[in-house]
């Protein structure tokens, strides 16, 4: 009899017994992400850790033993601290800075305005989320999805609405992975064939001194403007200065490889694991996903429309497709703009110009995060 009791007790503690439909739904989503990452190679660096994290986070367990990500003293909880404290996004920005070449932006600074214009999706979504009844802190966190920047979204949400990190991170990264599906129809809809074949001028040579001065000037100006963006832009420009200085090549190399890779692994995995079905699957999450899609689409559209407005005043016209790369999904949106340009004219190479807008978008979305954070400080 004791043997049977022991066996039954064991059975009631297994995932098979504890599973409910929400876990099953999330496991299917996790497997889908892993499939997309490996089978279709859709943003594998993001979707693989997140997808596997979703699978791990949705294996049912007996609560109270310190196993789950939301249980104090669990291993996952400690790893998740990097997300909730905003440490991983800052580290990712350090590596991103050490990877970014601002030469293209420095040689054509007016492209920076497209990075600013693409942030309009953020403020439009802020209004939409407020109108749907989300409180200000949650609306601000949802709005930042429009920046198409995963680490920035996670950072701001960790500060303003930590209970929404899971759905917001998943929405932000999902839309980044879905760039090839979301952006091209919007670009095509808002531009004519004649506009899509506009050629950009050759980029001028940028001196090393310019590349050295830029991160210092950028840090001072952007962080003075929105001090709340210091945790993101500080490491970002520092990483870039390390790269450009050439005197700490070993550190720059580590920042753009081992450091950012480590942070990306733990960020993706723990964000995925935070999507436990019982916490994740609720009407709010669905609202966040819908608003996220709106935010991302508006951001793309506003960049393109702003480029067209600029063309009304410019002697040398800008290819309006570049406006779509003003979102900070690096380098996905730049690649998509380049591909769209090539489809219209196989000899028109827009990649370098699109990367300029993209890097400006990273700065723009980090400033927006700082602005939204400061709006929430009362």
């Amino acid at each position, binding site marked *: 009899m004791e043997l049977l009791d022991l066996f039954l007790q064991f059975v009631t503690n297994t995932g098979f017994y504890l599973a409910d439909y929400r876990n099953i739904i999330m496991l299917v989503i996790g497997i889908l992400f892993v499939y997309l990452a490996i089978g279709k190679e859709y943003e594998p660096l993001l979707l693989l850790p997140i997808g596997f994290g979703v699978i791990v986070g949705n294996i049912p367990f007996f609560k109270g033993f310190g196993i789950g990500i939301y249980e104090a003293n669990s291993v996952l909880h400690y790893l998740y601290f990097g997300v909730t404290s905003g440490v991983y996004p800052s580290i990712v920005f350090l590596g991103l800075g050490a990877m970014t070449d601002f030469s293209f932006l420095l040689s054509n600074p007016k492209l920076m305005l497209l990075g600013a214009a693409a942030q309009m999706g953020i403020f*439009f979504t802020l209004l939409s989320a407020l109108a749907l009844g989300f409180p200000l802190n949650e609306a601000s966190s949802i709005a930042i999805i429009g920046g198409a920047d995963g680490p920035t979204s996670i950072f701001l949400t960790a500060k303003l609405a930590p209970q929404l990190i899971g759905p917001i991170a998943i929405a932000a990264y999902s839309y980044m992975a879905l760039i090839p599906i979301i952006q091209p129809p919007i670009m095509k809809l808002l531009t004519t064939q004649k506009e899509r074949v506009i050629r950009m001028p050759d980029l001028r040579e940028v001196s090393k001194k310019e590349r050295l001065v830029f991160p210092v*000037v950028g840090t001072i100006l952007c962080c003075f403007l929105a001090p709340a963006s210091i945790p993101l832009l500080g490491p970002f420009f520092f990483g870039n200065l390390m790269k450009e200085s050439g005197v700490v090549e070993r550190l720059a190399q580590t920042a753009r490889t081992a450091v950012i890779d480590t942070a990306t692994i733990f960020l993706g995995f723990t964000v995925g694991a935070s999507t436990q079905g019982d916490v994740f699957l609720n009407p709010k999450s669905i609202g966040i996903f819908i608003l996220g899609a709106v935010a991302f689409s508006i951001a793309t559209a506003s960049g393109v429309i702003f480029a067209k407005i600029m063309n009304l005043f410019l002697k040398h016209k800008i290819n309006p497709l570049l406006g779509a790369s003003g979102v900070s999904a690096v380098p996905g949106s730049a690649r998509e703009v380049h591909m769209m340009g090539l489809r219209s004219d196989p000899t028109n190479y827009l990649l370098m110009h699109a990367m300029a807008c993209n890097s400006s978008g990273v700065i723009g979305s980090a400033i*927006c995060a700082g602005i939204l954070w400061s709006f929430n400080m009362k």
Partner: protein
Amino acid sequence: MTGLEAITHHNGWAMAVVGASIVISGLAILAFIISQLHKVIGLLEKKKEPPVVEIPEENLKESASAENCPANIDVTLELYRPLIEELDEQFQLADLYALAKKYHLPHPHLSIRCLRDAGILNSLGDGVFRLAA
């Protein structure tokens, strides 16, 4: 509370307008600063640059060889020509130096300086050089 009432209650309109204005004006200022950066750096560099003294062509080769440069600079040039051809027509000295290091050429710094001093590498400004015709 939902709809326009909720937006007004949270001061949403003002936040959207002010937020959008801040990010656009901030990046516009940054764009203006970086558009002037190369001019400012150019001005500062001009101030620092010592007066250029014209040296006759024949004396250049002599002076280069005088300061630890190889007696026959053409040998150095033959070593460096394939490397220069690997680069674009206009290139940064740092790129040439990196190539020389890659192919383990001896004393790349000294050799490149000698090539410069001998007038074989012509400066086009902003750290850009090209092989003399």
